[in-house]
C-alpha cells in the first residue's frame, strides 16, 4: 500500500478520525465530559493541522487533484469515494476546519457544566465529519451523503436541549424542511446519473463547459439540484427552518450559520458553477429566488427582537446575496469569485457575530437584546468591540471584510443588463446595515425604561448556571472572538491573493466609482437611519417601519411563511392525506377483510341449516346422486 497518495490518506484520516470520535464518545465516554472533550478536541486539532498542511502543500496546484476509490459499485449507479482538491475546496476545507476548531474551543466555556456535554462534542465531531466530507468530496453522490449527514447533525444539535419542546420542534423542522429541498436534489441526481452516467463533479463541469449537455437535461437537473440548495441555504420559500434553528446552543448556531450547514448550499452552487451557468433559465430562477430571500429576510430582521433571530435573518439575507452574486456572474459569463468570496468573509464575521451573541446570552441568560442592553451589555468589553466589528463587516463598511465581498457582488449585479437587480441588491444592503446597527445601537445606548419592547423572547436555558456571578469572559470564549475579529479585519485585504488562488489569475477591473459610492452610501444610509431611530439622543426607539403598521405586522409575522407551512402541514399532510389514508386503511382495506371474514362466518351459519342431522336424509341424497351419476355414465355405453 505504499502507493497511496498522502493527500488522500490525510483527507480520509480526518474523516475517519472524526467519525471515530463520534463513535467513541457515543458508545463509551458520553458520561464523562473531560474525556469526551479531550477526544473531540484532539481530533479536531488533527483535522485542523491536516487541513492547513493540505492547503499549504497544494496551494501551488495548477490542475485539480482528483483522488478516488470505489465505494459502492452497482450496475449503473456507481459511487466512488474520493476527493476533488481544487482551490475552491481547499479554501473551504481550511475554513470549515478552522471554524469548527474555534467553535469546539469556544464551547468549552459555553457548554461547561451541561449534562449533555459529552454528547454535544460527539455531535460536533459528526458535524465536522460531514462538513469536511462535503467540501472535499469528488462526486455529487458522496456530496449528497455528507449533505444529508450535515442535515442529521444539525438536527441533533438544534434539538440538543431536547427537553424543551421548542428545541425538539426546531430540530425536526430543520430536518424535514431541508429534506423537502433534498428531495429535489435527489431527483436531480437520479435524473443526472441516468442520463449523463456519472456524478463526478469535475466531469460534469468539464462537460458543461464544453456544452455537452442538452438543454432538456441541463435545466431540469440544475433546477432540481437547486431545490436542495434552497433547503440547505434557507432560500425562499423553504427558509423557515433557519430562524428556528437558533433553539440550539449558540456555538451551534455560529457553526450552522457560518461555515457549515447553510454554507453547504452556496458551496454546492459554487462547486457546480460552470454547470449551472450553462442554463440561463436556471440562473434566472436562482437570481429571482435569492433576491426575494434577500428582501424578505432583511425586512423581517428589522423587527426581530431576539439577537440570534436578527443574526439568523441576516444570514438568510447574506446567503441570498451570495446567490445573487453567483447567479449574476453565471448570467453574464463572469466568475464564481464574488459569491464565493462573500461566503468566505461571511463565514468569518457571522461566526463572530454569533459567538458574541453567545457571550451575551451566556452572561445575561436572555436572548432579547433590549433586555441585554438594559442589564448593561456594553460593559462586556471584548464582545462589544468584536460584535461591532462583525456588524461593520456585515453592513459592508470599509475596511472590514464584508465591504470587499459585497462590492464584488454588486459589481456582478452591475454587469446585468437589467439594473433592477442592482437596485434590489442595494436596497438589501441598506436594510442590512439598518437592522444590524439597530442591534448595535440598542446595545450601546441602553434605556432601562424601554425594556418590554421585546416580544417575550424566552431565555435560553439548559446549560449550567454555576458561574452566574463570574464577571468577564472566560478565555476559551474570548480567544475565538479575537481570532475571528482578526480575520474579519484582514480578510478584506486578501481579496487579490484569494482571487488569484481561486481563479489562477487576478481580474483587475477599473474601479467603478458610481457603484462604490452608491454601495457605501446605502450602507451608511442604513446606519444613519438606524442612528436616527435607535442611536441618537432623542430617538424614539421605534423603527421607521412602525409608521406603516400593516407592513410592520406583516414583517413581524415573518411574511406569514411560518403560518403557511404550518397550515400546509396540519391541513394538507396530516388533515387531508394522513387522515384519509388512515380512514381508508381502517374502514376500506381492513373493513373489507373483516367483511370477508364475517361473510364467511355468516354464510357458514346460513348453510348450517342444511345440516338437519337426519342421517338417513343425507344418506338418501348421497345414494340418489351416486346412482344418478352411475346411470348417467352407463347411458352412453
Amino acid at each position, binding site marked *: 500500500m505504499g502507493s497511496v497518495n498522502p493527500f488522500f490518506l490525510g483527507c480520509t484520516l480526518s474523516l475517519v478520525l472524526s467519525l471515530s470520535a463520534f463513535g467513541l464518545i457515543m458508545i463509551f465516554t458520553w458520561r464523562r465530559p473531560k474525556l469526551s472533550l479531550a477526544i473531540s478536541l484532539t481530533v479536531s486539532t488533527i483535522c485542523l493541522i491536516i487541513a492547513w498542511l493540505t492547503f499549504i502543500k497544494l496551494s501551488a496546484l495548477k490542475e485539480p487533484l482528483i483522488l478516488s476509490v470505489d465505494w459502492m459499485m452497482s450496475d449503473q449507479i456507481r459511487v466512488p469515494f474520493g476527493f476533488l482538491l481544487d482551490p475552491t475546496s481547499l479554501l473551504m476545507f481550511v475554513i470549515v476546519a478552522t471554524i469548527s476548531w474555534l467553535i469546539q474551543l469556544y464551547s468549552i466555556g459555553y457548554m461547561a457544566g451541561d449534562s449533555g456535554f459529552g454528547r454535544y462534542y460527539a455531535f460536533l465531531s459528526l458535524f465536522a465529519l460531514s462538513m469536511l466530507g462535503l467540501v472535499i468530496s469528488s462526486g455529487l453522490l458522496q456530496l449528497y451523503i455528507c449533505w444529508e449527514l450535515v442535515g442529521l447533525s444539525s438536527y441533533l444539535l438544534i434539538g440538543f436541549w431536547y427537553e424543551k419542546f421548542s428545541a425538539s420542534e426546531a430540530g425536526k423542522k430543520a430536518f424535514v424542511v431541508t429534506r423537502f429541498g433534498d428531495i429535489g436534489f435527489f431527483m436531480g441526481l437520479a435524473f443526472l446519473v441516468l442520463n449523463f452516467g456519472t456524478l463526478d463533479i469535475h466531469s460534469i463541469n468539464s462537460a458543461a463547459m464544453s456544452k455537452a449537455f442538452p438543454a432538456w437535461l441541463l435545466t431540469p437537473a440544475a433546477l432540481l439540484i437547486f431545490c436542495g440548495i434552497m433547503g440547505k441555504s434557507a432560500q425562499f420559500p423553504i427558509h423557515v427552518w433557519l430562524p428556528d434553528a437558533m433553539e440550539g446552543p449558540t456555538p451551534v448556531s455560529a457553526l450552522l450559520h457560518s461555515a457549515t450547514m447553510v454554507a453547504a448550499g452556496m458551496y454546492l452552487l459554487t462547486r457546480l458553477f460552470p454547470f449551472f451557468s450553462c442554463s440561463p433559465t436556471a440562473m434566472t430562477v436562482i437570481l429571482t429566488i435569492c433576491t426575494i430571500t434577500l428582501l424578505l429576510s432583511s425586512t423581517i430582521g428589522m423587527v426581530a427582537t431576539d439577537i440570534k433571530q436578527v443574526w439568523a435573518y441576516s444570514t438568510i439575507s447574506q446567503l441570498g446575496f451570495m446567490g445573487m452574486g453567483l447567479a449574476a456572474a453565471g448570467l453574464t459569463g463572469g466568475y464564481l469569485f464574488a459569491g464565493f468570496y462573500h461566503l468566505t468573509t461571511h463565514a468569518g464575521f457571522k461566526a463572530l457575530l454569533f459567538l458574541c451573541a453567545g457571550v451575551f446570552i451566556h452572561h445575561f441568560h436572555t436572548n432579547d437584546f433590549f433586555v441585554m442592553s438594559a442589564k448593561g451589555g456594553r460593559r462586556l468589553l471584548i464582545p462589544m468591540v468584536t460584535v461591532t466589528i462583525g456588524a461593520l463587516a456585515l453592513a459592508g463598511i470599509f475596511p472590514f471584510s464584508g465591504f470587499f465581498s459585497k462590492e464584488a457582488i454588486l459589481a456582478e449585479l452591475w454587469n446585468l443588463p437589467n439594473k433592477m437587480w442592482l437596485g434590489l441588491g442595494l436596497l438589501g444592503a441598506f436594510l442590512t446595515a439598518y437592522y444590524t446597527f439597530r442591534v448595535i445601537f440598542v446595545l450601546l445606548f441602553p434605556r432601562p425604561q424601554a425594556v418590554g419592547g421585546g416580544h417575550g423572547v424566552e431565555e435560553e436555558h439548559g446549560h449550567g448556571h454555576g458561574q452566574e456571578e463570574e464577571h468577564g469572559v472566560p478565555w476559551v470564549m474570548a480567544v475565538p472572538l479575537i481570532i475571528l475579529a482578526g480575520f474579519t479585519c484582514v480578510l478584506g485585504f486578501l481579496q487579490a491573493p484569494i482571487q488569484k488562488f481561486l481563479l489562477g489569475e487576478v481580474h483587475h477591473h477599473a474601479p467603478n466609482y458610481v457603484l462604490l459610492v452608491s454601495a457605501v452610501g446605502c450602507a451608511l444610509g442604513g446606519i444613519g437611519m438606524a442612528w436616527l431611530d435607535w442611536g441618537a439622543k432623542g430617538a424614539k426607539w421605534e423603527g421607521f417601519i412602525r409608521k406603516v403598521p400593516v407592513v410592520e405586522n406583516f414583517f413581524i409575522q415573518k411574511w406569514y411563511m411560518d403560518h403557511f407551512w404550518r397550515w400546509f402541514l396540519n391541513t394538507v399532510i396530516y388533515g387531508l392525506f394522513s387522515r384519509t389514508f388512515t380512514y381508508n386503511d381502517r374502514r376500506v382495506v381492513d373493513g373489507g377483510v373483516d367483511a370477508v371474514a364475517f361473510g364467511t362466518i355468516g354464510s357458514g351459519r346460513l*348453510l348450517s341449516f342444511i345440516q338437519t*342431522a*337426519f*342421517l338417513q336424509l343425507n*344418506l338418501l341424497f348421497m*345414494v340418489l346422486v351416486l346412482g344418478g351419476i352411475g346411470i348417467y355414465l352407463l347411458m352412453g355405453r
Partner: protein
Amino acid sequence: MESARMLVFNQLETYLYLALMLFAIGLYGVLARRNLIAVLISVELILNAASINFMAFNRFLAPTPAVGQVITLFIMAVAAAEAAIALSIIVAVYRKLRSVNIEQATELRG
C-alpha cells in the same frame, strides 16, 4: 357338461343379481328404518351381498379360487368387529337418549 353350464345355479349372473337384490333390500333398510338395530341388520345384509359377489367371482372367474374365500372370511371378521362396535354404540346411544330411534339423535344439527 354343456347343459350343466346352462343351469341357473351355474351362472355368474344369477348370483350377481341375487347379491344385487340383497344389496338393494339392505340399502332400503338403511334408508327407511328408524330403529338403529334395524339399520345395523340392513348393513349386515349389504355386507352379505358383497360376500356373495366375491364368492361368485371366485367361483366363476378368479384364477385361484382360494382368494375369494379368504376375502370373504375377512369380510366376516370385519363385519363382526363392526357389529360389536355398532351394538355398543347403540347401547351407549340408548343410555344417553333413552331411545334407539335414529331420528332423535340430532345433536349435530347445525
